[in-house]
């Protein structure tokens, strides 16, 4: 399951979603808003999304994870809008029979999100606001 939301992410709900009786392992990754980036003090972040494309790519990431690893459930959520320090901006939870698949698929999930999903963050810090330079993926 995938989602893009402007509401706070409840990570416990993600764990509830992925856990079932056939899974012996659940792995949860959360990305949270840091109070600094290199030397800059950060006060908040703004996330912008290309909604239709982001949903499509998130769905592809979920599908690919199911093809490449023997996992039971995967959920990936990204939050958009203004986020305060400490809030969860992104979360991926995966369940599988044994831990190895869940760990690997979860890493694949968050790495792919950071690489491909059209979402951008703008940092608000002491020296003003600026868009962060991300990766260009061919």
């Amino acid at each position, binding site marked *: 399951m995938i989602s893009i939301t402007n509401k706070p992410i409840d990570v416990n709900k993600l764990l509830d979603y992925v856990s079932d009786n056939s899974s012996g392992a659940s792995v949860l990754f959360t990305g949270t808003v840091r109070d600094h980036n290199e030397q800059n003090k950060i006060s908040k972040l703004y996330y912008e999304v290309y909604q*239709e*494309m982001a949903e499509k790519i998130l769905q592809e990431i979920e599908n690919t994870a199911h093809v490449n690893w023997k996992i039971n459930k995967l959920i990936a959520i*990204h939050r958009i809008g203004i986020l305060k320090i400490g809030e969860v*901006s992104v979360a991926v939870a995966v369940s599988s029979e044994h831990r190895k698949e869940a760990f690997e698929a979860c890493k694949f999930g968050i790495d792919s999100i950071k690489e491909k999903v*059209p979402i951008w963050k703008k940092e608000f810090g002491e020296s003003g606001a600026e*868009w962060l330079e*991300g990766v260009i993926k061919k």
Partner: protein
Amino acid sequence: MYKEEFMKQSLSIKLFASLRQAMNSDEIKIDIDDNTTVSDMKKIILETFPILKKLNIPFLVAVNHKYALDSAVVNTSDEIALIPPVSGG
């Protein structure tokens, strides 16, 4: 010459993040003709909007919500977007 002008059609292009901010708009329009490729389109964009050339923000092109190759042909019925380096997470 007249015929060439006549054949041109307007293509809308969605902008996001740093590119949207640079243009102060979430959409730009350029004129294309038949068989315009993503590569041609990039050149037209930079010629039409010198500020984008000056800022030199790298971007990929998405056609109908998929990253497109330079060789892909664009049509006015396609949903086109410029994707600056993503920074989610």
